[in-house]
């Protein structure tokens, strides 16, 4: 499953542009891989075979007509099924969106099409991106390609598994508390959560608006950088989009880490982190030191409160974002004698337990009399985390931590107690609260032989430096 140089997005795009391979040939190969293993893995809610062949053919025709092809020409890509695709079902792995076909494409989907990428399917996720294992999908879980008795992580488990299984060299996920990075770690691929506001959220079905960010999965850091260059950059349709063009990332990757100051986050390497995972983080830090970086221990005290703050802020926003699924305009409707009862019946039947749990948590946190104690306080913790990160970045260019406390766990391991499941995101949540970018890079395996991910964190808009470090880690494996 380790990527051969010919199977990377960079190589495919180059081959398609030069005419060495046709886009159709590339897509057929990947569709064949999907056909072979998808029944076992269930990475997809929908495989878009016909649409993928049609867009591959269009790219081949464009090339024949002498048109300039984009940076992702003919590259198959899998899309998390919470990204709106015009005319194609977008389910968020929820019954409540049954039958809904968006009348529009998400901004990232448009940008991918313009760059020549070929969407091969919509990937499975925890319902509305709420979960860390894809076990909360209404359509059944995705299995980890490295060990099908294990979860792929979540919520973007389908997107991570699709790339790990070779179904597509690239995929998109969304990361609200670690939903790209944690499955990337568990599936042994690269996963990036960009700076909040650097990738447009227009067309991403919202979970927690102030935390959600779309980002790439890839088999290599170079491919992840390529995809990020395509999807990033200002979008007037998203008011929180940073008014700057997409950064140039790939050209920076080879610069090495000589002289960079790397801090290993003390609060995220001790208690709660499995020893085999902690050992890989130490190995990564050592490798960077060997490569010329100045490595030291860093402290970001407020990250200890990240999980608590997150589980107030995210459900609060979710309780409001998910209110619109009321059976009136689209999706599932369960009839009743009047509209309030219809709304209750539709939502009762349409949402799964975890979604209901978070809607209740969030509704409670925003209620009159509790707002200050819960939501208000959580926002203040968020401010502290931002402040502590800013202080750490005075001394360090990037920070290092595990991505996930453990390697991929078995199905059912953590479903009985939601809190155990929530603890999976302890290392990833702080970056969502601060809005800063972070990447998970595969860095060896744990005692069970399953992939371990190391997380590189950087200040806002410093993706170039962050990915340089990730590339150095990749090179040192």
């Amino acid at each position, binding site marked *: 499953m380790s990527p051969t140089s010919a199977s990377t997005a960079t190589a495919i795009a180059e081959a398609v542009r030069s005419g060495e391979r046709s886009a159709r040939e590339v897509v057929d190969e990947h569709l064949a891989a999907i056909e072979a293993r998808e029944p076992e893995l269930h990475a997809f809610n929908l495989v878009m075979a016909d649409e993928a062949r049609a867009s591959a053919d269009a790219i081949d025709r464009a090339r024949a007509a002498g048109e300039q092809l984009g940076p992702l020409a003919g590259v198959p890509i899998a899309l998390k099924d*919470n*990204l*709106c695709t015009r005319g194609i079902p*977008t389910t*968020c792995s929820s019954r409540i*969106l049954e039958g*809904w076909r*968006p*009348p*529009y494409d*998400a901004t990232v989907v448009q940008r991918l099409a313009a760059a020549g990428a070929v969407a091969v399917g919509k990937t499975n996720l925890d319902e509305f991106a709420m979960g860390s294992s894809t076990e909360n999908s209404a359509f059944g879980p995705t299995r980890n390609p490295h060990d099908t008795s294990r979860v792929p992580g979540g919520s973007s488990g389908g997107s991570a598994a699709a790339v790990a299984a070779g179904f597509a060299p690239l995929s998109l996920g969304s990361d609200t508390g670690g939903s790209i990075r944690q499955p990337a770690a568990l599936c042994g691929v690269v996963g990036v959560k960009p700076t909040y506001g650097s990738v447009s*959220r*227009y*067309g*991403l*079905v*919202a979970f*927690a*608006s*102030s935390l959600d960010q779309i980002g790439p999965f890839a088999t290599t850091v170079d491919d992840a950088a390529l995809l990020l260059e395509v999807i990033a950059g200002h979008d*007037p*349709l*998203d*008011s*929180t989009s940073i008014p700057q063009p997409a950064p140039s990332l790939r050209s920076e990757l080879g610069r090495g880490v000589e002289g960079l100051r790397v801090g290993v986050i003390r609060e995220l390497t001790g208690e709660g982190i499995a020893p085999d995972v902690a050992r890989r983080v130490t190995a990564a830090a050592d490798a960077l030191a060997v490569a010329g970086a100045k490595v030291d221990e860093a402290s970001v005290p407020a990250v200890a409160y990240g999980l608590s703050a997150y589980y107030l802020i995210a459900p*609060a*926003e979710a*309780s*409001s974002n998910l*209110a*619109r699924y*009321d059976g*009136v*305009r*689209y999706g599932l409707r369960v009839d009743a004698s009047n*509209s*309030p009862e219809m*709304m209750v019946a539709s939502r009762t039947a349409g949402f799964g337990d975890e979604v209901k749990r978070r809607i209740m948590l969030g*509704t409670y946190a*925003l*209620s*009159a009399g509790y*707002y200050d104690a819960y*939501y208000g306080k959580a926002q203040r913790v968020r401010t502290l985390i931002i402040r502590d990160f800013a202080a750490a970045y005075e001394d360090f260019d990037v920070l290092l931590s595990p991505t996930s406390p453990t390697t991929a766990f078995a199905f059912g391991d953590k479903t009985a107690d939601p809190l155990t499941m929530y603890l999976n995101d302890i290392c990833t949540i702080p970056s969502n609260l601060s809005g800063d970018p972070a990447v998970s890079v595969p860095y060896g395996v744990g005692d069970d032989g399953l992939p371990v991910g190391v997380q590189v964190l950087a200040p806002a808009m410093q993706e170039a430096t962050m990915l340089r470090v990730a590339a150095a880690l990749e090179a040192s494996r």
Partner: protein
Amino acid sequence: MTDTTTTDLAAPDAGLPGGWQMVIGLEVHCELSTATKLFCGCPNQFGSEPNTNVCPVCLGLPGSLPVANDAAVTYAMRLGRALHCEVKPSVFARKNYFYPDQPKDYQISQFDQPTNIEGWLELPDGIRIGIERAHIEEDTGKTSHVGGGGRIHEAGYSLVDYNRAGVPLVEIVGKADLRTPEQARQYVAELRSIILAIEVSDAKMEEGSMRVDANVSVRKADEPYGTRCEIKNLNSLRSLVRALDYEARRQIELLEDGERVIQQTRHWDEADGRTHTLRSKEEADDYRYFAEPDLVPLDPSAETLAAIDASIPTLPADRRQALATAAGVTPVEAAMAVERGLDDLALAAIEAGANPARVMTHVEHNLAADEAVRLDAANFAGLVTMETSGELTATQAKQVLAEMVETGGEPGAIAAARGFEAMETGALESLVDEAIAADPEAWAKFCAGDAKVTGAFVGYVMKATKGQADGKAVTELLRRRAAG
């Protein structure tokens, strides 16, 4: 509306029995007349086919995001400044509640950091009514219930039209400073004329582009505020006055019978002239407000605010004051001219030397609202001067004015063409003598100081001259004759 006792700005008589006083606070929703909606590019248009002015954003489709319309924000700030509000850095907030005509099941509004705060509006008699806030929010869609006579409980099914969803609104929350239905009427009328003057809305109560909700309670003078009720469905100024009057009496009756007023929302029924319970507010609504994470805060620069201030024309209160000063009348007396847009004409005529009292008489009685445009101020002043110099009688002047409006002509030429010339004093004197001779009994009374009979003599002369005589000159001649 705050529930504290405030010192009355004024407590005019509302005609209530037994020392009762009304306390009224109005919440006015005003649809802004921007080309597009508040958070998307859909047309902001009344009367289109249902669900044609819609897109993913105003339908609240999954994945869609709002982007604030700069024009709407500017309009809202202009309204705030015209109401003497402070324009503050502000944030949008989500007001969460489930309703079928609310596409996202939350409304994007403002909560603890509204755009405009602490302003006031001046009634024509100079009383200032406080404005607590004027915040920006989006409108909802419109539900119609089919079958069962349009009532929700008996309807067979309901249809929702989302054309109105996302239309920009400003909600102007007035302080509980109003004390009578008439003051409430003046407040809304004044607010409407300000909104029209700054051109941010067509402010039509009948079409719903201006919607008024009234909070009303009663108390004995100087006692703390009583329990209030909110009245909805006030679609005209007439409804507002009638509903307030009814509601105050209903509350007084309850209290005098030893019962209590229950805080609730009531619906005004124009047909039966009563308010009816819509829903009880005893359980307070919990809208779970929080800052809208999909939008960024509004923080207008000093230059933006200066440009907004510069875009505001002279407001009705200032126009009333200017005319009142020039004409030597009270602002209340100047109000009609301002309401009709005739104040600039009147001011120009007075400036040109015309008699202010005569100018005001013509403006109030002899000109309609849209006639100023066809009337040259210098000609108007000329006409008034001809009248005050005795060249034209009042009646003649009125006729000449009518023709001036019609043709845009010059008063001297019109008067000449009509053969209006000041009657020679000799001719008038002989007619006055004729009148005296015709009624010696009345003349005796006149000479004894009974002014009531004056009309009989003036009437005689007017009849003889077919109304062309100057009534004042006749009266003067009578006085001179009586004085011997």
